[in-house]
């Protein structure tokens, strides 16, 4: 128990150090370009904590959370699903086209749209999995390529001649009627912005993820494969099947990424549907240490930075400064986690050394040498 607390403390310390470092770099850049950092942070905080902003932050975080969980499940077994980006866009596009054209009663319709999205996401990720287990292709390379191909397919299908309708300068899929939408909730008092109903889906996915990882045999195999695939293989785990299954699950969750926005706000897939969420998901999964609670904090932080930066443009500071902050956070957080890991190893080795040096009659080592 004490050991776990120790590890938690190290992780939290690492995250705090990384955030402080990122804030420092951001301040330097702001100062160098002639803006006062303190004033900027103050304005961001004021704006970001308004009721409407908080609702928007929850909405943004819902989407980010799903993307990060999709990435995290791969990370837990050393599988880098960099293709979440292509998976969610293709899934959202096809699910939107499906939802706009199919006639199903309310309730069933939303469910069907979500299932289609999950299937498409799983299919696209499944290609990566199959290439990896049958042909030994690195999942990183193939999913980068498939991201680009997904962009091409979406561009091809999102055409008035095919699955879309023209709408002024924009092109979009047929809107999903209200019987297929998921209404918002007035969760935050005093806010006009409603919170996505699918917030609860994201929470459910997080809980499901934790149960899957820590309570099931599959989760045990998954973590074992992540630690050492050869050890897992020799203890009877079918690693190839694990790779394929994990990719399918990761892809299915990736398929959900576009759903809160699609069913709760835009109701259609158009050219301006949010892009690049898959890469944000990678960043947040890293920040949250692939842990559902950590990822929740990471998503909220990310969404807060996004939302609160909107005020900066009104103060003549390009709001893109927070993208620099976010990038620095990711880089510094992986560095500090690595340093803390090394520090933890050193401390553990010392503890073992002390315990072994002690005479046998003494009490067992209080630090707990096993970790």
């Amino acid at each position: 128990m004490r050991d776990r607390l120790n590890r938690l403390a190290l992780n939290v310390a690492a995250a705090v150090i990384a955030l402080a470092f990122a804030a420092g770099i951001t301040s330097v850049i702001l100062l160098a370009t002639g803006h006062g950092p303190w004033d900027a942070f103050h304005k961001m905080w004021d704006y970001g904590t308004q009721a409407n902003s908080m609702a928007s932050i929850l909405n943004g975080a819902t989407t980010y959370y799903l993307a990060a969980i999709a990435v995290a499940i791969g990370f837990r077994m050393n599988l880098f699903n960099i293709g979440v980006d292509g998976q969610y866009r293709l899934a959202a596009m096809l699910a939107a086209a499906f939802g706009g054209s199919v006639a199903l009663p309310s309730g069933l319709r939303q469910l069907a749209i979500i299932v289609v999205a999950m299937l498409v996401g799983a299919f696209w990720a499944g290609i990566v999995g199959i290439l990896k287990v049958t042909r030994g292709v690195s999942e990183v390379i193939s999913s980068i390529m498939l991201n680009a191909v997904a962009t091409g397919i979406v561009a091809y299908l999102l055409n008035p001649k095919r699955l879309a309708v023209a709408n002024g300068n924009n092109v979009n899929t047929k809107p999903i009627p209200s019987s297929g939408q998921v209404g918002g909730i007035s969760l935050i008092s005093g806010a006009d912005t409603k919170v996505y109903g699918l917030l609860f889906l994201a929470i459910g996915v997080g809980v499901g993820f934790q149960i899957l990882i820590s309570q099931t045999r599959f989760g045990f195999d998954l973590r074992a494969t992540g630690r050492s695939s050869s050890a897992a293989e020799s203890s009877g785990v079918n690693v190839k099947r694990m790779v394929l299954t994990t990719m399918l699950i990761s892809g299915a969750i990736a398929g959900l990424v576009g759903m809160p926005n699609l069913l709760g706000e835009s109701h259609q897939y158009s050219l301006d549907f949010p892009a690049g969420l898959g890469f944000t998901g990678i960043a947040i999964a890293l920040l949250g240490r692939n842990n559902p609670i950590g990822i929740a904090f990471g998503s909220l932080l990310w969404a807060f930075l996004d939302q609160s930066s909107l005020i900066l443009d009104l103060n003549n500071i390009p709001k893109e400064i927070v993208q620099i902050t976010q990038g620095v956070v990711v880089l510094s957080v992986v560095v500090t986690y690595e340093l803390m890991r090394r520090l933890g190893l050193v401390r553990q080795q010392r503890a073992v050394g002390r315990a072994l040096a002690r005479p046998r009659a003494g009490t067992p080592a209080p630090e707990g040498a096993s970790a």
Partner: protein
Amino acid sequence: MTVRDPAAATADASQVRADRRIRSRRLTAPQLLLAAVLGLAGLSLVRVVTHAQDITSAGTIGATINLAMPIALCGLGGLWSERSGVVNIGLEGMMILGTWFGADFALITHSAWMGMVGGLVGGLIGGAVHAIATVTFGVDQIVSGVAINILALGIGRYLSGVFFSDRPGGGPTQSPQVDRFGSLKLPGADTFFGKIERHHWFFVSDVAGLLRGLATSLSALTIIAILLIPLTWFVLWRTAFGLRLRSCGENPAAAESLGVKVYTMKYVAVLVSGMLAGLAGAFLVNFTAIYREGQTGGRGYIGLAAMIFGNWRPGGMVAGSALFGYTDAAQSRQGSASIHALLLFVALILLAVGAWALWRRRVVPAAVGVVAAALVFAWYKATDSIPAELVTYTPQIITLVVLAMASQRLRMPAADGIPWRRGQGT
């Protein structure tokens, strides 16, 4: 310089053995020349049959050079980094930094040459971040690369907002016009080859088109970029330094135990890699005379793909870049008509591959080749254009197919992507 470095020689032993096995299958110079002539003849035949005159025109060749160079430079960057054992997904981000700094330097100094320097500086910054994170701190290389891509996007946007917005013609997403390199034209070549090209003779006009394209679309920057390719080959494969660098990507423990400074080698490799990606960015800026957000369009990833396509070797990487650059050029100039004509060319190649396999009495590959050729030919007959949206992503699709078909024959550096800590081998 002779190869006498014992450290690297030992570390490289497995590579030598693997190379020897491959060498028996590797093409010699005359064979390559023959393949090139046959390829051009095939294209010429397709041009005569389909009247898609643009597929070997000087314009297309010139566009191919200009579109292939950024890809090749990124591929070259990938080669440096990965040969030293550091995977570089951050090429895209380093390229973005190269475009921004390239445009900014060129804008401030009104000099295209300074734009080139700016590209190198921007890429160097990205490379330095990647080197510090992956070599010194041992962070996962792919993670660091992804983070650099996120970071570079933000830096480009923020700095444009600050520095370009209040200049005439500039804005938060683009720079004002910048100075470019003048094109170097061979006197007389344009008219002479142009005359032959306009006759549309079989093969002769295609050669003229190729030469005219070469003679009219070069600039000092293009020539420098082209020269970097043989230079890289020479440094990495023909010097002791290159052997040491590559030994770090194959077996860092062996290299270190024999006295190679692994950290230094990796630092040099990743910094050079960043500079090459940055130069690719400067090349793009020079091509369009402007910095624009999203200008790199994933070319860093395509460069990576070209390197993998080329089996982590410069010759293959160049072939991949040329192929990807050519599809891009054919598509952007005449759109789907040219590409549609190229379907016939693809069918021809597949047929040739099938015939070759039959000659070697390998029935199954022969059948696959012939059936694939027939299918592609049917596709050609049944349609009269290919959707442009899909053509754009031909490089990625080709890479996927190559990976799926030949991944067993591809051989990446043995220790590529594995974090290395000093003294780990002892």
